[in-house]
């Protein structure tokens, strides 16, 4: 469950101050499939960074599953990201020197899981995205769609309570993008919370609920 209470994020650029998020209130229930939509510069990325615990709000409160995130240290934030959040990025963000399965294994290593458990979970995640045959490939030996599926598998393997996807179909053609969205639907159907950040109304429309952002304010909740 995600709760924003009066959250602001302020950037100082010389003399000017920019409110990337301006007194935002937000509730996302567990198990919801929500898309956050807005044009570039609307504060989407800032919102995603705060939801993903990569950044902290300057004002207001952010509760993730009831945890007061803004009071957490860098180390605690890393633990929250590791266990509660599964990131999926527009440019996949796989580590190029690691094979597909090693990329998937990485968050599990940080969780301190045993080798056996890591193997099980990696195999399970690979099967879910249907890429078991390509587990030894390096990212640059995989197509964009395959890379994104590996990235989703990496998010799945750590069993997060929240999947946070930032333009996951942005670098893909519409057919491959459709396959990726299919996986998010499956994740949602399995009871996971999915938050999708996009500027594409068509993609956003696939979510149960859309949250519009403009100039750092929540504009419309549909």
């Amino acid at each position, binding site marked *: 469950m995600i709760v924003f209470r009066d959250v602001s994020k302020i950037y100082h650029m010389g003399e000017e101050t920019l409110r990337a998020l301006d007194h935002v209130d937000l509730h996302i229930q567990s198990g919801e499939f929500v898309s956050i939509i807005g044009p570039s510069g609307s504060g989407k990325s800032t919102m995603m*960074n705060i939801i*993903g615990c*990569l*950044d902290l709000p300057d004002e207001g409160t952010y509760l993730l599953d009831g945890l007061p995130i803004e009071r957490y240290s*860098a*180390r605690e934030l*890393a*633990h929250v*990201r*590791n*266990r509660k959040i599964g*990131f999926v*990025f527009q440019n996949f*963000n*796989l*580590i*190029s*020197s*690691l094979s597909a399965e*090693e990329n998937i294994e*990485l*968050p599990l*290593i*940080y*969780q*301190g899981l045993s080798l056996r458990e890591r193997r099980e979970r990696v195999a399970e995640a690979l099967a879910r995205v249907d890429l078991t045959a390509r587990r030894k490939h390096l990212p640059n030996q995989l197509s964009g769609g395959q890379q994104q599926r590996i990235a989703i598998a*990496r998010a799945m393997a*750590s069993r997060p309570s929240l999947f946070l996807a930032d333009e996951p179909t942005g670098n893909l053609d519409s057919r491959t993008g459709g396959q990726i969205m299919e996986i998010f639907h499956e994740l949602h159907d399995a009871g996971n919370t999915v938050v999708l950040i996009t500027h594409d109304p068509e993609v956003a429309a696939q979510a149960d609920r859309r949250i519009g952002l403009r100039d750092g304010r929540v504009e419309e909740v549909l």
Partner: protein
Amino acid sequence: MILQSVKMALKSLRSNKLRFILTMLGIIIGVFALVVLVSLVRGASSSITDSVNELGTDLISVSILDDHSHPIRLEDLSELADSDGMGLVAAVAESTCSASAPHGQVTTQVTGTTSSYRALQSLKLESGRFLMKPDVDNHTNVAVINHDLAVKILGRTNVVGETIRLNGTSFKVIGVLEENSGSFQFSFFGNYQCYIPYTTLVRLNETTSRNVNSFYAGAGPEGLDATEERLKNWLDERFQHDNDAYFLFNQSQISDAMNSITRTLSLLLGGIAGISLLVGGIGIMNIMLVSVTERTKEIGIRKAIGATRGSILLQFLVEALVISLIGCIIGLILSWFAIQIIDLIGKVRYGVNPSIALLSVLFSLLIGVLFGLYPANKASRKPPIESLRYNG
């Protein structure tokens, strides 16, 4: 976690082999230089020390340069030896003679001396006996010969009772030294030694005087330094306090001097090799800094999926350590081979000095930590958002 970090480090190093090898080369050369140079110096110094010890370290040798018309006779030396605080004293005169026997002929070193010489030089007899007081008193023609000389001119070593000729005069062999016993002489022609009574040498060789010009004195009951002091007093009294009348040399000074030379030498060479190891460490730091910048994105990804600052720091630190340790191990292996080859070629057995090998491992570890810490810390402090956005 550490094991995982080592695996990750190996993986990332394997993905950039040439860079890894070149960086390691600095450490390899440093460790190689350190281990080989110091092992060689230690090996050489221990072999030199052995040779010096064989010459007798608890020995004072005295040469008379100007006897002020008070020449020292053998009787004076006996008196000196019997006086308080003195140890053994043996007159020494050296010459070369042509030694011949049925089996062969050779030029040999001849030492004219007295019975105490054996103990002073720790000579070991294989058979027979050494010179004794009656031999000296009666200037008999008897000789103690060393192993090499026996083999050369008689063809065997059980030759007590045989007769040899020194410059044409017959001598009865009364003793044979063990192999490698006796004064060591650096000679291409072999090490031939023959010991005869001092008085006999005086007769045999006209340049040898009855006046003793050179003698050895051993340590008395109060030690070598006290003996040296007494000896000096005795000589000063005899030669009217003319310091230039004699030259006195305490052999223990040789080993002291040798030790200090080799210590300085191994510090110097070790220091130079240490500096090259340090330069290797700077190479590691340099390449780690490049690597941290290049892998900014990777660091961002790792942080996003849950790596703490500590685990990023550990990862890069372990990478630096792996470079320095693998480099160190390769350096050790290479230096082991180098020293085996040097041992094969040369006479002296050097061997890798274990303490310097251990030291080089510790030093490499220290360098890995020292020069890896800064880049690793830099990597761990990278903010995740900016790092994720980085496109290098």
